[in-house]
């Protein structure tokens, strides 16, 4: 492999080893076992130590989604599936987002590792199926707005506020939207992926030009769908509440998580001897990306919190009241873990130039962000779905394992399907000499 030139070989074939496959299968198996254990504990009532008695939180919880049915333990199971599906939907689609804006900006440096974000959206179809399946199986338990009585003025369940949102929040339109998101994201990704693979074979700049067009088309689509999907997937759980920042907020959360996943994958591949052309400057830029967008996420988080805190309108502050002191205060810890891991931690770890060029600091920061944003979605989804029956037990751990191992599996499979370096990418020359 040693080359006489300063530039390493451009031919790199990623190998998805049987050992790695075995580890992932063990991970999925362990996840399934944990979920089964957690479900068994919940179903048999032994998990009661995790369900806190509601003492202080009554005022916060009953006022909002008043007409809750008796709690079923399966709701917690489905809420966990939903949480992970939304989290990994975001991570996957950010791969597409990343390559699209890099095409639009005609960025050169990112072409060195572009196969990694390019491989991420392969998980989207699975997530689409999971999201739709959960909605059909347990939508009634997770989404208060799916209750028919809310829209019937004769019903005692009638809720004028939610009835006013009926034009948007109704099952047919919801399903159409969800199908549309996944179809649009997947099809546009498929186009870009195909162009990229054909470029490897035939070269030339035609594929690059086409990729810019379709990447831009995706950005236009994503500008709308990132917001609306955030409302559909997360915000509509708290049917009464709304925040005009929510689309941005979820996009920021997804984006920084996706960047952390890209960085972690690049560093891991480099440690295993792949991606030789990626140098310290590429890593530095990825570090800056994570640093900048963790601050951006904090900015949006705070902009949303600040307005609600200052204005102090009961129908808005209920959202934070549920997370601070509602449901026996069980969401207070995730709430602050979220802020700590997603702002303070990457801010301090990635501040210096040297940290952004060192594997271990990048990995620590990326893991912090990846775990932190799980808690971000946890604090957004759990209080509205399981309320005081939430917690952090075998089900949560197991579900993360299943989804994460699945994600790594599809990512690795995609990486084997093409040369790890897009060797005919017109901007590759620039990436090879990237120096900052």
């Amino acid at each position: 492999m040693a080359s006489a030139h300063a530039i390493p070989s451009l031919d790199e074939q990623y190998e998805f080893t049987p050992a790695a496959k075995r580890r992932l299968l063990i991970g999925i198996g362990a996840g399934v076992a944990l979920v089964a254990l957690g479900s068994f504990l919940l179903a048999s009532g032994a998990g009661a130590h995790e369900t806190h008695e509601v003492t202080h939180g009554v005022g916060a919880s009953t006022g909002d989604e008043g007409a809750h049915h008796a709690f079923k333990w399966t709701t917690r199971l489905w809420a966990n599936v939903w949480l992970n599906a939304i989290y990994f939907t975001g991570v996957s689609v950010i791969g597409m987002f990343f390559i699209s804006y890099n095409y639009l900006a005609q960025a050169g440096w990112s072409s060195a590792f572009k196969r990694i974000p390019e491989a991420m959206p392969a998980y989207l179809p699975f997530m689409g199926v999971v999201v739709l399946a959960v909605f059909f199986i347990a939508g009634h338990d997770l989404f208060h707005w799916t209750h028919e009585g809310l829209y019937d003025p004769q019903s005692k369940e009638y809720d004028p506020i939610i009835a006013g949102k009926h034009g948007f929040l109704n099952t047919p339109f919801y399903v159409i939207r969800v199908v549309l998101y996944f179809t649009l994201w997947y099809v546009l990704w498929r186009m870009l992926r195909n162009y990229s693979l054909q470029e490897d074979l035939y070269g030339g700049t035609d594929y690059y030009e086409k990729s810019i067009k379709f990447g831009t088309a995706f950005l236009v689509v994503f500008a709308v769908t990132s917001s609306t999907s955030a409302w559909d997937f997360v915000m509509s759980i708290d049917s009464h509440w709304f925040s005009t920042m929510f689309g941005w907020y979820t996009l920021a959360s997804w984006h920084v998580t996706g960047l952390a996943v890209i960085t972690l994958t690049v560093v891991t591949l480099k440690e295993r001897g792949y991606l030789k052309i990626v140098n310290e400057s590429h890593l530095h830029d990825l570090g800056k990306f994570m640093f900048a967008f963790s601050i951006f996420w904090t900015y949006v988080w705070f902009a949303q919190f600040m307005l609600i805190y200052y204005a102090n309108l009961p129908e808005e502050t209920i959202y934070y009241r549920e997370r601070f002191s509602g449901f026996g205060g069980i969401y207070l810890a995730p709430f602050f873990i979220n802020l700590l891991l997603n702002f303070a931690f990457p801010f301090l770890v990635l501040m210096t130039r040297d940290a952004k060029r060192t594997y271990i600091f990048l990995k620590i920061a990326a893991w912090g962000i990846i775990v932190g944003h799980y808690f971000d979605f946890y604090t957004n989804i759990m209080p509205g779905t399981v309320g005081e029956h939430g917690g952090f037990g075998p089900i949560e751990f197991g579900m993360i394992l299943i989804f994460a191992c699945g994600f790594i599996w599809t990512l690795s499979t995609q990486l084997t399907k093409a040369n790890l370096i897009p060797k005919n990418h017109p901007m590759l020359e620039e990436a090879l000499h990237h120096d900052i």
Partner: protein
Amino acid sequence: MADVNGNGKFLVGIYDDDDVVLKAVKDVKQAGVRIHEVYTPFPIHGLDVALGHPRTRLGIAAFLFALSGTTTALLLTAYTEAFDWPMIVGGKDSYSFPVYIPVIFELTVLFCALGMVGTFLVSNGLGPAVKPLMFDLRTTDNKFAMAIDLSKNKLAEGDIEQILRSSGAAEVNVKQF
């Protein structure tokens, strides 16, 4: 930091091309000449490394300026809102921290920005009454100038001129401040 108000005699090599000047820096240093500074119309990648400049400490300066802004904002808001004239706005306690985060943020940015402007002026020897060292006016347009401080070099003027010329300088001028 270079002696920006330096007086003395300089040799100024004028180059036409950024690649040539980058290579010339290495060659001239190789020949044992101490380079005062290189002036270019645009940043050249790797020039700072070639010149052997130490790592910039601007980041530390920026951090300290920002920290002074954060401290000022914390003290200002705490003093005015909690001690000097406690006020209840919007039903909040007289010192409710989240309210002041925007103020703290803004003053942090402001102090950092102003501090860095000041740092820029000082470190580049710019200011209302300061006459800047201008080795060649064409470096603001399309030429690259390498300045050699003769008082800091042991080699003879003629030798240095020869070195500059053989490194690709289109012309070599003498500049006296």
